[in-house]
């Protein structure tokens, strides 16, 4: 009897799950999926030192306000103009670290995706937490 009840509960749990799968099957995720291996933390990226090129995927105005020292501006607002400027200084030996404003922003994922597919670059990483996390780390260190 208990087994029957358990089975019934499992079957009932499938109903909303199937409904959700049908309803959301064509819904697009807000964030471009990024494999865990393509993400990098601030600590890891900073440890790469001069072997990393930092890409700022935020809008021009935010980059002008402040950015990671040495970072290169490359956003989708002016991709056609900025990509050739980046490719002139790009070095195949260096890893590329792309960041945008926060953990929730999608611009860094989009830029990383376009660098991999359109320019066919390798070793492109997205910074976890973005600029917000980088600033947090900087402030913590300055406070020490």
């Amino acid at each position, binding site marked *: 009897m208990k087994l029957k009840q358990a089975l019934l509960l499992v079957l009932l749990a499938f109903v909303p799950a199937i409904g959700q799968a049908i309803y959301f099957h064509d819904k697009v995720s807000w964030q471009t999926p990024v494999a865990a291996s393509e993400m990098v933390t601030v600590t890891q990226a900073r440890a790469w030192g001069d072997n990393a090129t930092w890409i700022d995927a935020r809008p021009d105005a935010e980059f002008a306000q402040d950015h990671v020292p040495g970072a290169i501006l490359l956003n989708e607002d*002016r991709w056609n103009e900025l990509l050739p400027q980046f490719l002139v200084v790009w070095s195949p030996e260096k890893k590329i670290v792309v960041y945008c404003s926060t953990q929730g922003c999608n611009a860094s994922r989009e830029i990383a995706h376009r660098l991999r597919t359109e320019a066919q670059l390798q070793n492109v990483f997205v910074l976890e937490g973005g600029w917000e996390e980088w600033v947090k780390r900087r402030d913590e260190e300055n406070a020490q």
Partner: protein
Amino acid sequence: MKTQVLAFTLSILLCASARSELKWEQTQLELHPAVGDKVAVGHFKYKNTGTAPVKIKSVHSSCGCTTAQTQKDQVAPGESGEITATFNIGDRTGTQVKSVTVETDNPAQASTVLVLKAVIPQMLEVQPALVYWQGGEAPKSKTVSVTAGKDFPVKQIKVTPVSTDFQVKVSKVGDGEFKVEVQPRDTAHQMVATFAIQPDDSPKAVYLSARVINSPPPTTTAVKP
């Protein structure tokens, strides 16, 4: 006890009668901007079909590339209005999906997500956007494919400017498909060139970079924020 029950019933009835609701014409919009359009604008129309006013507390978008504005902060019963979402296309391509969240003081409808989908046409696609040679590598030609978007009948393309460092040869390989072969003069020196590729009858260009790289060995100095 009777008074308490009556007061409770009355309060329920009052709450129900003072119902407020924003009824949206559409919460999802699909836009098809033309080539060269700078922005795509979506109008999300609503009407307050309830009997109490609705206060729009905030309107915010999922991305810095989209701005959203409300016509009014307070919507009276029976009144209509709209949220305007402006998506800055820039150099984005393909299908872009952005959301706008509208928050109101109506607890039954505290938050509504409006979805703006923009299908951005691409006249030419270049693959890859970069060809490069390492110093000392054989200076053989490398091939880049250029494909016209399905709605663009591109008969011929041109590649500019003429470079003394790189030789460029364009050939048509199919309907709207082209092959661009790039060859460096030599690979003994660092060289760089950026070529604009565009249809013969359009100023809209995509870019191709070519480089001969003599990379210095990587160093390991840590960057401090």
